[in-house]
């Protein structure tokens, strides 16, 4: 046990994963109108989940990565996904996953990634997505996965 853990009873590092509990059909065809359904967060109990919003505790810097896999009726349906603060504000430096191109109707895994620091208080995020055409497009829970790594500040 480190000194910080001893005096504060907090973890110096955090490792969590978050997953979907079932497949999800994307309905939004405009800018990131659908929130991805997160079924569970496992790992550190310092990270919590409520109504698809994941909350990170104060006093850490985090790496968050979200990998998405889809199945679609047509490759003309492109899918964009990103991690976003739960109040819909942008996370500085976040990357947007882009599933486009032609080929078969199942994408490879794509990810949205960012770093989040919480020196002044906890922060909450969710994952948002949309497709570019009306073709049926489904997020596959078996191929979708999130990772959270936290280091105490």
């Amino acid at each position, binding site marked *: 046990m480190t000194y910080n853990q001893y005096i504060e009873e907090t973890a110096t590092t955090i490792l969590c994963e978050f997953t979907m509990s079932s497949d999800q059909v994307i309905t939004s065809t405009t800018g990131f109108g659908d929130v991805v359904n997160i079924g569970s967060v496992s790992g550190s109990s310092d990270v919590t989940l409520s109504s698809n919003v994941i909350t990170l505790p104060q006093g850490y810097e985090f790496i968050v990565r979200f990998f998405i896999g889809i199945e679609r009726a047509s490759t003309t349906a492109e899918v964009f996904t990103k991690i976003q603060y739960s109040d819909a504000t942008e996370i500085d430096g976040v990357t947007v996953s882009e599933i486009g191109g*032609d080929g078969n109707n199942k994408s490879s895994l794509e990810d949205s*990634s960012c*770093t989040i620091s919480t020196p002044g208080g906890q922060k909450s995020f969710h994952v948002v997505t949309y497709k570019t055409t009306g073709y049926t497009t489904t997020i596959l829970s078996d191929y979708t996965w999130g990772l959270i790594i936290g280091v105490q500040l």
Partner: protein
Amino acid sequence: MSYVPSRCIAELNGSASDRVLAGSNGAGSVKGPLNILNNVPWLTVSANKEDFDSSKETVVFGWSHGTNSTSSDFYHLYKIVGSGHTSFAAQTNGEAARNYSKLDEDSLAIGTGAFSMQCVGKYSGGYFVDAGSKVIVIRLEF
């Protein structure tokens, strides 16, 4: 007792303004300019944003987002290269129907000292480390 900075994570991002042309077919490396989002004292960068130097042992991972203005197929094979690093290469592909490549390939390196993100092989041309590219550096050593 000296002060030990507590930040352990650095984030390096590609941008549309700093992207570089990978060049034509074949081998030959091109270094990718990356912008540090959060400065940390254990990682320095050259003026052209291409060369990084870590004073601590680190895990480095990240990917390039390639784009192509000609709507033709291309791929970029890239690698985090450093004299003190053990690393693995990654590849991103752009398909004919889109001008944007996939983002799902990570290059991974572990080591100390100088490193850079390099496009070490390519088919066709296109831009290397465009916006959407990211490299994350995690300090292991205190």
